[in-house]
């Protein structure tokens, strides 16, 4: 155990040098240096300041929409196939209707048709049909609901990304979580208020005519409010052009009305639709509807053929700017709500780093003094191992690019306290062996051998706790688990391998001397 081959010595020194090499960029202001790596310990949001937002998509309206379109489709197809239905209604997430019992077979065939009920995954169809006497209940399958959620999630994440990019935040991290959630991390952001405001709106824009009671409004009429005025509008359900056809929106200023406006530009298709509709409806009011509120309803005076337009609605400059951003970045398929937020201001983050490092230094010094007092020269060896341990933890964090959080710093300090455990185990064992065995080499050798299983057993239990924490925990707690796990592994190396190496050099020089620990 005390013999180290040249290869081993070389490997130990190599780890030592690598550790220091990757540690240095963390304490010296080196950047873009050819000699050193740019990798540094990645500070968590709680240390550098920033916002963590968990958004959830409310997919209910989307499922309702799908239910409605399915109901239209089914009724049309049933009529075409001469299948008689009565009392067609929707309840919760299902469609129900009564049928003629003698048509049951045809109906079953019809509802099993791949056009009516498409296969959407390897396991399932769009809906399932349950027959009960003369009533059939059509329910969407979990597969379909998940598909709707997945599509909404994919669309939403793009739009969330666009909106956040528009505000020019540095290095946002935007990823999906589960079926209907989006995780947004915004490092260094002081006040997430503006972003939260932008994420709260779906920004579904469309242009619809106000209804004239005498003109055909066959598709129906909505009664919509106005956000600023206390007026209600009767707006046709028929959509002339929607936000999808928008290619640009910029804030502007209208000198005639002396207020801020948003200028927009439509794509070719949108422009054509707009031109047709405006030509035929000169004199009517065109409502500009955003998220089911009428922003304004100007009168059409001329056919608008260029595809350029202006939205005015007594905006302040900031409101106009926000609206332009929302329109440019596209509409969300469904509303997003923030179900979890954790924001830390940069000042608090800095203070946390300072107090974290200060308590690390104090804890480290206390442990060093304690070990030195207890084990003298061997305490010194253990302290050198401990210092190397710290360096290795920091450099491993840098290489892996894992995030250091405030509990993470606590994890390092805890490691400092627990790391000496292996040394204590070894030294106490050596004491015992020295009582039985006069030969120093043999005594040390036996002690190291015997203590190995104990060290492994005890470290593995803590490692289990760290791994469970890593997989179950979130954010800051994950950071704690990472440093704890890295700490355990590097502790094993620094005490059992590096520490043993130091001790072996000392023992070989003092083979005959009386060693007291």
């Amino acid at each position, binding site marked *: 155990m005390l013999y180290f081959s040249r290869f081993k010595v070389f490997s130990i020194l190599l780890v030592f040098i690598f550790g220091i090499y990757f540690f240095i960029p963390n304490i010296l202001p080196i950047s873009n240096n050819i000699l050193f790596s740019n990798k540094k310990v990645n500070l968590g949001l709680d240390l550098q300041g920033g916002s963590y937002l968990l958004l959830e998509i409310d997919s209910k309206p989307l499922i309702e929409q799908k239910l409605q379109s399915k109901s239209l489709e089914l009724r049309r197809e049933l009529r075409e196939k001469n299948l008689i239905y009565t009392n067609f209604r929707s309840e919760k997430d299902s469609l129900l209707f009564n049928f003629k019992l003698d048509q049951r077979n045809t109906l079953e065939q019809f509802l099993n048709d791949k056009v009516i009920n498409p296969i959407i995954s390897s396991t399932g169809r769009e809906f399932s049909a349950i027959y009960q006497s003369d009533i059939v209940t059509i329910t969407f399958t979990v597969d379909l609901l998940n598909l709707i959620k997945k599509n909404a999630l994919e669309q939403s994440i793009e739009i969330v990304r666009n909106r956040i990019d528009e505000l020019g935040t540095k290095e946002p991290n935007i990823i999906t979580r589960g079926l209907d959630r989006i995780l947004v991390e915004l490092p260094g952001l002081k006040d997430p208020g503006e972003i939260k405001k932008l994420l709260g709106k779906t920004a579904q824009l469309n242009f619809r005519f106000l209804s004239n009671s005498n003109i055909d409004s066959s598709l129906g009429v909505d009664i919509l409010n106005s956000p600023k005025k206390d007026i209600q509008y009767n707006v046709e359900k028929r959509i002339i052009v929607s936000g999808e056809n928008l290619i640009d929106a910029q804030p502007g200023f209208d000198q005639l009305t002396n207020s801020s406006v948003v200028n927009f530009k439509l794509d070719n298709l949108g422009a054509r639709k707009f031109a047709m509709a405006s030509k035929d409806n000169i004199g009517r009011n065109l409502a500009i509807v955003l998220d089911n509120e009428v922003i304004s309803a100007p009168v059409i005076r001329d056919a608008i053929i260029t595809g350029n337009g202006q939205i005015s609605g007594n905006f302040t400059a900031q409101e106009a700017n926000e609206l332009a951003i929302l329109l440019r970045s596209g509409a969300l398929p469904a509303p997003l709500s923030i179900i*979890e937020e954790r924001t830390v*201001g940069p000042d*608090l983050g800095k203070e*946390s780093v300072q107090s974290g490092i200060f308590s690390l230094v104090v804890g480290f010094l206390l442990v060093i003094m304690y070990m030195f007092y207890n084990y003298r020269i061997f305490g010194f060896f253990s302290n050198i191992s401990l210092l190397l341990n710290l360096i290795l933890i920091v450099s491993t964090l840098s290489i892996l690019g894992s995030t250091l959080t405030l509990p993470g710093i606590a994890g390092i300090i805890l490691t400092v306290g627990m790391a000496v455990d292996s040394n204590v*185990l070894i030294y106490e064992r050596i004491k015992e062996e020295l009582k039985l065995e006069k030969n120093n080499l043999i005594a040390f050798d036996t002690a190291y051998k015997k203590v190995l299983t104990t060290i492994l*057993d005890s470290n593995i*239990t803590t490692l289990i*706790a760290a791994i469970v924490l890593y997989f179950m925990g979130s954010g800051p707690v994950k950071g704690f688990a990472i440093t704890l796990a890295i700490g355990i592994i590097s502790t094993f190396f620094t005490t059992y391998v590096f520490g043993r190496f130091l001790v072996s050099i000392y023992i070989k020089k003092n083979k005959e001397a009386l060693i007291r620990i």
Partner: protein
Amino acid sequence: MNLYDRKYNFLKYKKSFMFISLIFFILSILLFYVKGLNLGVDFKGGTVIEMKFDQPNNSEEIRKSLLKIDLGDVKVKEFGSNKEFLATIEQKGKNNDFVNSIKIQLEKDLNIKIDFRRVEVVGSKVSKELTIDGIYSVIIALTLMLIYIWFRFEWQFSLGSIIALVHDVIITIGVFSLIGYEFNLSIVAAILTIVGYSMNDTVIIYDRIREFLKKDDKQDIIELINDSINSTLSRTLKTSGTTLLALISIYFFGGEILKGFSFALIWGIIIGTYSSIFIASPILVYFNVKRNWEEVVDNTP
């Protein structure tokens, strides 16, 4: 003082210690049901805002102003100094932008500039998930350790160590209920760490018991266990000592956010050390541990 040279009779009062532990165990469970835990937003849902003022202020005025916004119960307390406060608000606003409206309200009422240094908002759905995750993680960790010890030792050891661990976890929860420190995600992390540490302590004594069992299978089991505790005692106390030193440093200098976390760890180290000496080891007496280990200990270097 060299602890190793002295020999203490740890098992003499084993029944009394187990009885005392049992009392505390039951008291903790009672406390948990009667008084409950001071759950943080992580598990209860709601909003926490840490704010800093330009000038000193008092918590009652902040509370009054916050009560005007209809967000349920509000608690405000000083947080480190009389310019810093921590407000805990029962509910989460429906609007995505409600934190900002809280700030506007406060600045209007108190006529002062306020810096929101930390904001945590947890919706009820998320808090339920976090609670379930927290409970699962403790159970999973305990189960994995049970399996590991079973694998490395015998079932008697596995059972003994798990009894000690459950004892540690329940009494720690009892202490949190008693003193009313906030119970949040990081406390769960601390409890898992305590579980790891206490296990570590127990394993080291068990290792020694097993070693002695292999060496001599005629020694009285009570005496053997007592010898094992004594011969590892110096290590047990020294390691607990260094770990406590490091943790005390976090408690005093690590800032307000880490206070509860480091307190849980400090308490955990104490109870973990106690339980491995006075619970996990003596309990083996009653479990009829296997005596004749087949493999022979190799004493040659």
